[in-house]
């Protein structure tokens, strides 16, 4: 655990922004018209940190953040800490072994076709809305925008929240779902930190050790690094 992963694990608030680039105009007779450019639609996550990190315990973290700065991406996950794993928990009904046998048949636009499906009841739910799906080792998760049941065919089609932004071949790739998915993020606004009064540490045999609390200059606005997708 290091750098941005620590920030995710210790944050006290999280805001997810997946809004697309859209132009909206309202005509004189109040008819709304929209235009959209299908983009990479990167994940944007704002993390609010508490001002309770003790300086002597967070020096390694400070160094890791300074090394990352505002231009270095890092792989993070929300399944790392048990206190976070519920956020993107898989909502479908398949067991891990059944998920592991599924492979990608094709991925065109936002239509992800999966094959090698398990032999289960046609009504069983494979993906609920908002379930994360990762293709192979590409750390660019997609969400399922609809509820997908097994059906009776050899394949199922998942409509994803963004088009196939992965440039590599994905056919026959396995999938990862839920909180096991990974994100490739960087922090373009990397906040600075301030040492404020507090954080007294008596751990050294009851002797007061000089210390401080860490206060960040703002939220951590993580942005998905899709340049290498």
């Amino acid at each position, binding site marked *: 655990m290091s750098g941005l992963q620590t920030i995710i694990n210790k944050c006290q608030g999280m805001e997810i922004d997946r809004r697309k680039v859209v132009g909206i105009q309202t005509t004189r007779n109040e008819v709304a018209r*929209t*235009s959209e*450019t*299908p983009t990479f*639609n990167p994940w944007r996550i704002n993390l609010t940190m508490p001002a309770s990190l003790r300086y002597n315990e967070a020096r390694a973290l400070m160094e890791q953040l300074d090394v990352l700065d505002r231009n270095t991406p890092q792989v993070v996950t929300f399944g790392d800490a048990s206190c976070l794993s519920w956020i993107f928990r898989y909502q479908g009904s398949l067991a891990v072994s059944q998920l592991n046998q599924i492979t990608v048949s094709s991925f*065109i*636009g936002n239509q992800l076709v999966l094959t090698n499906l398990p032999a289960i009841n046609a009504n069983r739910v494979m993906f609920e809305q908002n379930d994360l799906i990762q293709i192979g080792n590409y750390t660019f998760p997609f969400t399922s925008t609809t509820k997908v049941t097994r059906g009776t065919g050899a394949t199922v089609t998942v409509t994803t929240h*963004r088009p*196939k932004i992965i*440039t590599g071949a994905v056919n026959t790739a396995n999938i990862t779902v839920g909180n096991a998915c990974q994100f490739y993020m960087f922090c373009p606004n990397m906040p600075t930190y301030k040492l404020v009064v507090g954080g007294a540490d008596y751990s050294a045999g009851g002797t007061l050790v000089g210390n401080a609390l860490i206060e960040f200059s703002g939220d951590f606005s993580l942005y998905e690094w899709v340049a290498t997708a």
Partner: protein
Amino acid sequence: MSQNIPQVQNTGAIKSAEFVKLTIFNEFSNSANVTTHTFSSAYRNETIDGAEYLALGGLLSVGSQNRDLRVTAGDTNISLSGVSGNNIQIVLDTKIRGSEVEVWRGFYDDTDQLDDYYLRFTGVITNYTIQEERVDNNDNFIVTVSASSYKTVLSNRIAGRKTNEESWKVFDPLDTSMDNVYSIAGVQFDFGKEVTASSSGGNNGGGGRRDRDRGNEQQR
């Protein structure tokens, strides 16, 4: 010529992306020696008219384009990212001015697949700028190329030959048509006047117009 675009008809929502093709002519005398750069605001590489438009994320913006019923001169600007990529190299290290530029707009369907595309602008690069924006620790570069439509280019074009000996002999060294231009340059010459034996040079020239006037007076 007007064109029907079904993707924008009877709908309140459209999905589109811009595609820019830059054709750089490497040699003045060989129009076949070209380097082509294609980039787009799309999320993936798309093929239009046989050219693959790269989705490298280098395209920042495309300026407005005039659409008039009659042919009018219109300019536009295309901004490219100067961070990473090779856009600064393109404008500094190639014959960018005079390059041909095409701007296409592609329309996407509900499954984010390219449905159709239309040519919006064809012109010639007339200028470029590289802008650095440095504020505190933020340092960014933007490359902007200015493109003029062909009408502007043709309006500004200087063509033809000058009526002097040197210019005339560029194409045919044996052509002596303009050899005497220097000797009569700046001389008042009365075209049409009858040549008299005493007249030498052009000072006394012809006087046809006066003769005609005289003839008219006699008829009256």
